[in-house]
């Protein structure tokens, strides 16, 4: 737990190794688990995803920027920790013989890559917000602007997520020695993380902030319904209205 400034600086430089996805080196880090490394990843997740979230929320209000900057990294941390036990059990069951802490570290690595990519996109997101008509402008324009913000957010997050998982495959292959096992484990982890992550996002909404609703940290209806129910109802409304 005693992380010195020099260790931290050294580890920050090692972030580029993660981004390059060098399987040999990353696998050795996974085998030699240290708390310092986990703390570094948590810091990168908070800074990267936090900056992106703040830029995203700034369109609605500076207070929304603060809230989203806090909630966005929380989604990642809560998803990783909430699924930690399940992911740790799924790995050996699917043929990847690593411990609970190692599986947690690999997932943290993946989210760290995603957070670093999102952090690098945060100036772009801020530029997008600067060029989008504000909430105070006409309602018709805001509706288009709100939709555009949502679309841009989805595209950027999807890109970061895909890249993070693409980088994870060679590491899992190196650890398991089998491409099939690597893909099975990745698919299982993705499925459970998607299941829990989408619901945490649902509970912690709003992120961009709906112009029609006052700025709030959590929706008053936070624990009402769930993500998949809402998607089903939206599809039902679209098809059978």
């Amino acid at each position, binding site marked *: 737990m005693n992380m010195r400034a020099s260790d931290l600086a050294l580890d920050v430089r090692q972030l580029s190794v993660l981004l390059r996805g060098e399987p040999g080196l990353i696998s050795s880090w996974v085998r030699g688990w240290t708390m310092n490394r986990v703390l570094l990843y948590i810091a990168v997740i908070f800074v990267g995803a936090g900056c992106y979230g703040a830029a995203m929320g700034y369109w609605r209000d500076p207070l929304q920027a603060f809230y989203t900057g806090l909630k966005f990294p929380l989604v990642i941390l809560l998803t990783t920790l909430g699924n930690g036990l399940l992911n740790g059990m799924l790995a050996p069951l699917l043929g990847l013989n690593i411990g609970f802490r190692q599986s947690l570290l690999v997932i943290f690595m993946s989210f760290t890559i995603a957070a670093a990519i999102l952090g690098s996109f945060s*100036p772009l997101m801020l530029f997008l917000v600067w*060029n989008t008509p504000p909430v105070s402008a006409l309602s018709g324009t805001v509706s288009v602007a709100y939709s555009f913000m949502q679309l841009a957010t989805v595209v950027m997050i999807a890109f970061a997520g895909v890249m993070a998982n693409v980088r994870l495959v060679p590491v899992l292959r190196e650890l398991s020695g089998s491409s099939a096992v690597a893909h099975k484990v990745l698919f299982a982890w993705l499925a459970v993380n998607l299941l829990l992550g989408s619901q945490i996002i649902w509970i912690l909404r709003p992120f961009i902030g709906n112009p029609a609703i006052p700025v709030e940290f959590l929706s008053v209806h936070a624990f009402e319904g769930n993500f998949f129910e809402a998607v089903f109802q939206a599809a039902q409304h679209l098809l059978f209205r």
Partner: protein
Amino acid sequence: MNGTNPGPLDNTPNPIKIPVSSAGSYMPPVIPSAPSGAAQPLGTNPAEQVPITGPVSAVEAILRQPRRVIFQLKQPNAGSVITSLLLIAVVCSLVYGVIVGTFSGGQQYWAAPVKIAAGLLISALICLPSLYIFSCLGGSQARLVEVFGLVAGLLTLMTILLIGFAPVAWVFSQSTKSLAAMGGLHLAFWLVATIFGVRFLHAGFSHLGTKSDGGMKVWVVIFVLVVLQMTTALRPIIGTADTFLPAAQDKKFFLSHWFDNLDADGGRSRKWKGDGN
């Protein structure tokens, strides 16, 4: 020339070998590929090791010896090279901005240069973090300072080329009243300059160990979009307006701004023809 008698090509480092088939007849010679710039390690040519001492030296190097610039960016004195490159980019964009300002005159003589120089620098800074991340994702070993240096080189090459286009732009700006035509012309010049700038950037990354250039292609699209949007966010640059920058409620996507200008220009043109008749 046959396989035993030496010919003029024997002086080359990779002589052409004429293979003989099993039937004894000569096969067509395999022409060796020319050594590419990327294959040769940086600094092997002594000319690349000559330090870049100032802006004049930097202009010459980026036009004639881009490998020398890339090599110098990997040296401990990279900071002074980057400073020189940025200085050239700022001066050249200011000069080109004055030419852009001659279309409308008045306040645009100083507003256009300021907006063009600031817009280019801000666009580069906005896109810098994503370029560094994309370079890492592509397997590059480049440090942030080297990536920053390559972006400075991109801006420098772009703006130097714009200076080359400046006399042409000035002639057109004195002879046309169409805002859309001038906008299109400046855009075309900027696109040509960007293509050459991106070539420099690509060469730089190929020397910094990039294994995949997919990320860089995505980044180039992002950079072009950001610069185009910046021209709309900082408008007016060519024309005139009551305010230095557009009001918050007048924010537009650049395509929407272009179409509005085309419509307005078409309206003016129709009105002029009507008056003439």
